[in-house]
């Protein structure tokens, strides 16, 4: 029973790291980036390639996955995304879903369509028992890494100068600009951070969610559910939403496997009826 809770939380943690970048860009730039999963896939493939071709140890590939995805994120933001900021949401959705399809086809062409497999270092394999609760080592590792990340994100968002400038820009970009905050550079940085986090999530998720070219499409729904339920104005919102979904998904499949795959959708519908503005909305403006 506790094992299920633990598995669910680990799963939710990965979901959070994958989706928080999306929620940040959505809240910040009012930009619907459906191609977010493509950055996650990129991070995953960076890890796979580094491990398989160059024999880089798993731990070292994680920051590289982050940097690689962030770098590509910055370049794409400069070239492709920026002209789209002013366009309507429909244009943005069409544009980013197009990128998704290109990423899917590109990954298929370059990497082949099969599931990618990585070999974890032996100290991350297997499990141990803590007071009768079976704990998978890798899941524990994921939990710790993502927990630290979530904490530092929350701290950075609320306590640092960068965070306060960011929040100011989100609230009112024009006034922020008038006060001398470099809004464009801030957005580019945030976009890079979001993409990098997605890349890291993709790399961490290989072992739990698998990795193949259809990844951005398969998990797009999950990201969007996290963002819709969690709301886009905070870090804590998507965090708790991801936890809730992870636990509900795993527990649903455990207790009622016949309908397990639908539990998260039921949950989303119910939550959106009860709290239409997301879990932690401050009430309607």
């Amino acid at each position, binding site marked *: 029973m506790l*094992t*299920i809770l633990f*598995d669910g939380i680990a*799963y939710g943690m990965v979901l959070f790291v994958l989706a928080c970048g999306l929620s940040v860009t959505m809240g910040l730039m009012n930009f619907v980036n459906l191609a977010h999963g493509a950055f996650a896939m990129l991070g995953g493939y960076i890890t796979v390639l580094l491990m398989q071709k160059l024999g880089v140890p798993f731990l070292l590939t994680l920051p590289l996955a982050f940097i690689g995805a962030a770098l590509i994120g910055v370049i794409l933001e400069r070239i492709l995304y920026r002209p789209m900021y002013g366009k309507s949401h429909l244009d943005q959705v069409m544009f980013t879903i197009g990128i998704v399809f290109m990423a899917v086809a590109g990954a*298929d062409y370059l990497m*082949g*369509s*099969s*599931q990618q*497999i990585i*070999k974890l270092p032996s100290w991350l*394999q*297997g*499990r141990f028992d803590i007071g009768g609760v*079976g704990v*998978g080592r*890798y899941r524990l590792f994921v939990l710790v890494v993502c927990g630290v990340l979530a904490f530092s994100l929350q701290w950075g968002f609320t306590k640092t100068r960068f965070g306060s400038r960011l929040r100011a820009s989100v609230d009112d970009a024009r006034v922020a600009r008038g006060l001398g905050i470099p809004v464009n550079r801030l957005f580019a940085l945030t976009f890079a951070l979001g993409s990098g986090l997605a890349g890291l999530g993709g790399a961490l998720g290989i*072992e*739990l*969610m*698998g990795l*193949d*070219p*259809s990844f951005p499409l*398969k998990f797009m729904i999950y990201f969007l559910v996290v963002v819709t339920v969690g709301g886009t104005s905070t870090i804590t919102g998507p965090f708790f939403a991801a936890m809730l979904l992870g636990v509900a998904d*795993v*527990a*649903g*499949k*455990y207790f009622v*496997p*016949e309908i*397990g*795959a639908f539990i998260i959708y039921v949950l989303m519908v119910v939550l959106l009826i009860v709290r239409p503005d997301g879990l932690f909305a401050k009430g309607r403006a």
Partner: protein
Amino acid sequence: MAIRRQVLKGALGLSLAAALGSAAFAQDAAKVGLILPMTGPFASTGKQIDAAVKLFLAQNGAVFGGKKIEIILKDDTGNADTTRRLAQELVVNDKVAVLAGFGLTPLALAAAQVATQAKVPEVVMAAATATITEASPYIVRTSFTLPQASEPMADWALKNNIKKVFTVVTDYGPGIDAETSFANKFKAGGGTVESVRVPLRNPDFAPFLQRASEAKPDALFVFVPSGIGAQFMKQFVERGLDKAGVKLIGPGDVVDDDILESIGDVAIGAITTHHYSVAHDSAANKAFVTAFKAANGGMRPNFMAVAGYDGMRVIAEALKKTNGNTDGDALVAAMKGLSLESPRGPILIDPDTRDIVQNIYVRKTEKKDGELFNVEFAIIPMVKDPVKAAKKQ
């Protein structure tokens, strides 16, 4: 001078003959429309079969019964609507004599109507749901059926003191086939079975395996499509089921030869029943494996490849029997009852059901010379598809 002139004449004569010959062949071609998923999540199936078909034609020449076999390869990406459209185009525009390939059950079913209406034989080289051959009288199968591979597992388990089995299968046609055929046979023999089905699109097996481990079975019976076998095996070991003494059993898809190496040592000890292992000990198989690896940069052939190889051979033999007559009814009649020595052992196309009859082998995954193999240790000779056999009684 004189010699040179003669050589010249000879060369001229040869090239003339060759030109005439190829013109004659072009008229007398038997086109085979090969529809396979060459891209998308099931591309490995397509690649294996395509490579095997090419190997067969390279080894045996392409002329059978006076007809030169021409392959038209089409990629359906694993999408049933595309399969049907491609089958129609191949029949109407290219006038193919035979449709072949079909990587998954829905794809094979999508083309069945086209085969029936056009009276064109449909040679199924991969899809393994039992009922496929009933969808059209023109369907002939050279792969296997899941009940055919799963039922012998029940017998083996009962004989080896396994009383309680937990089954985990992917929730679609072949998975349900595997689960029901195994469970029915196993229960009839006095065993108890608990089952869960995993959605096709979710590779996180954690909750399902947690259930399995709490049920404390003697063995875990698993069917997943071959691509995600690796994911399953890893989580099986991560959850400590192997250490708890739970045997891993099932049809051979989960330890597919194509990906066995990348699954790694966690696969060691799995007991599976299947119709083909790359380690099958026979001269015919050794020759097949060596030739296949040489032609494909060291890639191992798997059960898809052997079915593609035999499928091509069935088409060739049928053309020989009909003396090059490409009439659909004549070809299907010629395929019925064909008995061949395949790399996997003897096979027979059942004249009643047009399905394949073959040996099923019990294998154990072991490490040999640094490579992983499914080593066969028992044979159940000439197994018919049990689902159709039961219907006849």
